[in-house]
């Protein structure tokens, strides 16, 4: 059956084969040239492995790390020391541990060991680094790069100090460089299309929305950071075994700028872009270098030592790209997603909702013996302003509870507390009898609390089906299962037609539905909706009510509905709770609440009155 994936098989195949073909063509060109040209192309391919490593972290997370070249350096040093013949090792690094000093491993084994060791290093360095904010990661990783440099340049008896290492066997040929580039392309694409890759991309598109579907920022970033570091280590190990020399400056600031430029020029979000950017920038770089007087073809890694025209050119290319073409040459798309190819390829098909329903034995997550979502005595103040005053709330499975009240009554703040985005000053939240007060949003999402936001917060860079499927991935579903769940949810919300279109280009009404779809895909037992009908017309409101009614009936989940449109509230909700000034004014059936004088007073001529008469 075709179209079981998030992308059509033809598109996925093109996305893999086009970059591989580019690598193969480049290698063939290099092998056909002069030995000097072949060396240059080999180094470019080594560089490509590093750039693909950068893509895995930077492209999927949207966060820049300047530390990855530190991992390239680490991998390069370890691999070099493992392969340098013992007799030379004694001279250069007398205090190196014997185990490493005496080792004279082959290229493959040394590269693999370097990658593994760097992976361990990256996981341990990344553990604290990834805890810091999106803003601090570029800086703390930059600090890491300087620490690595400082240690390599000054620990003479072990690293050879600032003069570096020589007599490194030159075992990297154009064939092995091309092969490893191919491996890196496959790894980068596989990661991007894995559940972990999608979860990380969701954090790139919107951190808050990602957390609301169970995605933990640190965990996802750390995984990509580690894989990225291992690829960079491979690239570093390959490069030193091409050039035969290594110094602390080889993989330092200049190399960071070069590789980041390559990634950005191609378009960081795409693996195809990383390949295109590397080749384009390397070509321009070599041309500029040849323009310079006395330019020797030493390859890219000597940029730090020969500044001038080429480096200025690099900076200008980077600047112009950022201003004119921020998504890079590829536009952030994979080869199989680019205009002409996309038209030529058959579109990806989703399983029709009916078929998907039939195939799946069980409906979405079943409800166990539950006692509801309870808030008890919740109080919260923001810098002196008391927003919630000892609020109680109870949401039962299978019911729809309307939460209404004038602006500033504390409705959204209460939903934030229930979903973990805010910790209350006092009071407790109980989920089916278990206290969950103060747990993170991602923990609560995985425990069965789904929510939407007043703003749509779309995953603009993902397609519609991807941005729903990632909801299921966020709470632990594998890719295949996530696609099935997404197909079902999209069918239910009548968005199946839009499945392969970009989420960011949907009209506002659909974006709102997408937010609900995304939350539904997490299989919530309690669904908290913050003004889902805002901006919808009457007909769309009617559809929304029907959809939500179906969700409640079929899955038995409890729905908490903040809504200003009283028709929607009255149609859907069996109970209504009215807030004013952070306190509960009334709870009861819609009719009871409507008749309550306190409620009328709280609203006094606002939308409530209009709603009641409509």
């Amino acid at each position, binding site marked *: 059956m075709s179209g079981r994936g998030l992308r059509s098989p033809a598109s996925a195949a093109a996305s893999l084969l086009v970059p591989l073909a580019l690598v193969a063509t480049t290698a063939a060109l290099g092998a056909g040239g002069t030995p000097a040209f072949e060396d240059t192309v080999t180094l470019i391919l080594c560089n490509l492995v590093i750039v693909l490593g950068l893509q895995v972290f930077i492209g999927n997370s949207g966060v820049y790390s300047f530390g990855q070249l530190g991992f390239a350096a680490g991998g390069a040093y370890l691999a070099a020391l493992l392969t340098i013949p013992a007799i030379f090792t004694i001279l250069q690094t007398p205090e190196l541990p014997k185990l490493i000093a005496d080792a004279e491993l082959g290229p493959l084994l040394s590269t693999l060991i370097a990658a593994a060791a760097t992976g361990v290093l990256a996981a341990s360095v990344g553990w604290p680094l990834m805890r810091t904010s999106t803003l*601090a990661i570029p800086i703390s990783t930059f600090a890491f790069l300087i620490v690595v440099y400082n*240690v390599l340049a000054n620990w003479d008896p072990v690293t050879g100090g600032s003069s570096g290492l020589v007599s490194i066997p030159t075992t990297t040929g154009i064939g092995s460089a091309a092969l490893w580039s191919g491996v890196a392309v496959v790894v980068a694409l596989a990661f991007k299309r894995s559940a972990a890759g999608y979860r990380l991309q969701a954090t790139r598109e919107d951190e808050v929305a990602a957390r609301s579907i169970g995605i933990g920022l640190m965990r996802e970033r750390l995984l990509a950071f580690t894989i990225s570091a291992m690829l960079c280590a491979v690239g570093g190990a390959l490069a030193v075994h091409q050039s035969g020399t290594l110094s602390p400056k080889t993989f330092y*600031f200049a190399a960071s700028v070069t590789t980041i430029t390559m990634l950005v020029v191609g378009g960081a979000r795409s693996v195809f872009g990383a390949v295109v950017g590397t080749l384009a920038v390397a070509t321009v770089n070599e041309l500029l270098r040849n323009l310079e007087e006395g330019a020797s073809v030493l390859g890219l890694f000597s940029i730090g030592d020969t500044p001038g025209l080429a480096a*200025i050119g690099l900076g200008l290319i980077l*600047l112009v790209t950022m201003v004119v073409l921020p998504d890079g040459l590829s536009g952030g798309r994979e080869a199989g997603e680019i205009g002409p190819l996309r038209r030529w390829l058959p579109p990806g098909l989703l399983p029709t909702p009916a078929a998907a329903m039939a195939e799946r034995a069980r409906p979405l997550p079943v409800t166990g013996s539950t006692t509801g979502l309870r808030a008890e005595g919740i109080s919260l103040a923001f810098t002196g302003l008391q927003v919630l005053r000892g609020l109680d709330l109870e949401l039962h499975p299978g019911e729809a509870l309307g939460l209404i009240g004038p602006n500033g009554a504390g409705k959204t703040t209460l939903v934030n507390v229930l979903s973990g985005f805010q910790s209350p000053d006092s009071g407790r939240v109980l989920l089916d009898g278990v206290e969950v007060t103060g747990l993170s949003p991602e923990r609560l999402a995985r425990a069965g609390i789904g929510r939407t*936001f007043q703003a749509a917060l779309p995953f603009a860079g993902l397609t519609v089906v991807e941005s729903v499927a990632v909801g299921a991935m966020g709470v632990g579903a594998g890719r295949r299962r996530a696609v099935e769940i997404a197909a079902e949810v999209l069918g239910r919300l009548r968005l199946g037609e839009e499945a392969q279109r970009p989420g960011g280009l949907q009209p506002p009404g659909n974006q709102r539905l997408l937010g609900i779809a995304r939350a539904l895909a997490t299989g919530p037992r309690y669904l908290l909706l913050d003004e889902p009908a805002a901006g919808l017309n009457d007909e769309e409101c009617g559809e929304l009510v029907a959809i939500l009614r179906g969700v409640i009936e079929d899955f038995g989940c409890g729905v908490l509905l903040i809504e200003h449109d009283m028709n929607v509230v009255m149609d859907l909700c069996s109970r209504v709770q009215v807030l004013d000034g952070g306190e509960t004014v009334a709870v009861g059936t819609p009719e009871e609440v409507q008749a309550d004088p306190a409620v009328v007073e709280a609203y006094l001529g606002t939308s409530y009155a209009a709603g009641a008469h409509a």
Partner: protein
Amino acid sequence: MTDLAQSLIDALALGGLYALIAVGVTLIYTVMGMMNFAQGEFIMLPAYALYVLAGLPFAVAVGAALVTGIGIAVLAERVAFRPVRNADLSAQLVTSLAVATILQNVVSASVDARAQSVAAPALVSESTQIGSLSVPNLEILTLALTLAVLFGLGWLLYRTRIGLEMRAAAENFEMARLLGVRANRVIAIAFAISGALAAMVGVLIVMQTGQVSPTMGLTPVLVGFIAVVIGGFGRISGAVVGGLVLGALSSLLGTYLPDGLVPFRDAFVFSLPVAILIVRPQGLLGSAAGEARI
């Protein structure tokens, strides 16, 4: 005792220098939300002004350095940073990286890639005897300049109209615009002040090290970034605290680390932010709850 007092003064002086750098970085961050890599080049270019004008009276050269710092900062803002003003943080960061690369290599290509020596005037290389302490004049100058700059900035931000506009822009840029704050002017002025601060730092560094090089801005800019991270983003007070902590630590490590470890001082200093961020991910003075925009 004397040793301790001496190293404390050293620590304070280096901390003051780092605070100046961090304040320059923070000013731009507050009005534009950009971490500016090119701040290092705003330090490096004025230093080269001293090198180029070495024959002229020192005061003239320093004046030229200030003009250079202000000029390059304002120019970079106009040409490179204004087009990406509304781009996301990463895009702005990479843009400033591009500017830094270009400026660095223009200097490499037009002067020399290697370090050049610059003689400092005799007065700043001497020391003043205070009791039993012999304090280098440069340290006194650095501390005096830091204090003057902080008071000057405080006056500007809290006692003038443009300061009010800058604080408003830092708080909520769009709202400030709607209320009549002229964005271009506010940002240009922030860059000009930041450039002037960077120029002072450049001059101080040249007088201390006696040399200039195209990459001399790299470590200072990182120092500034880390001081900002330690202090909590976007607060002048945080930047000052972060700078002082970092400078003091660096200076004291230089004095008290065992000889074998002194070359690794930078490794220790730059590991600090990570240690601090493990305990307080929001920085020393950052607010505890990063308010979610929901």
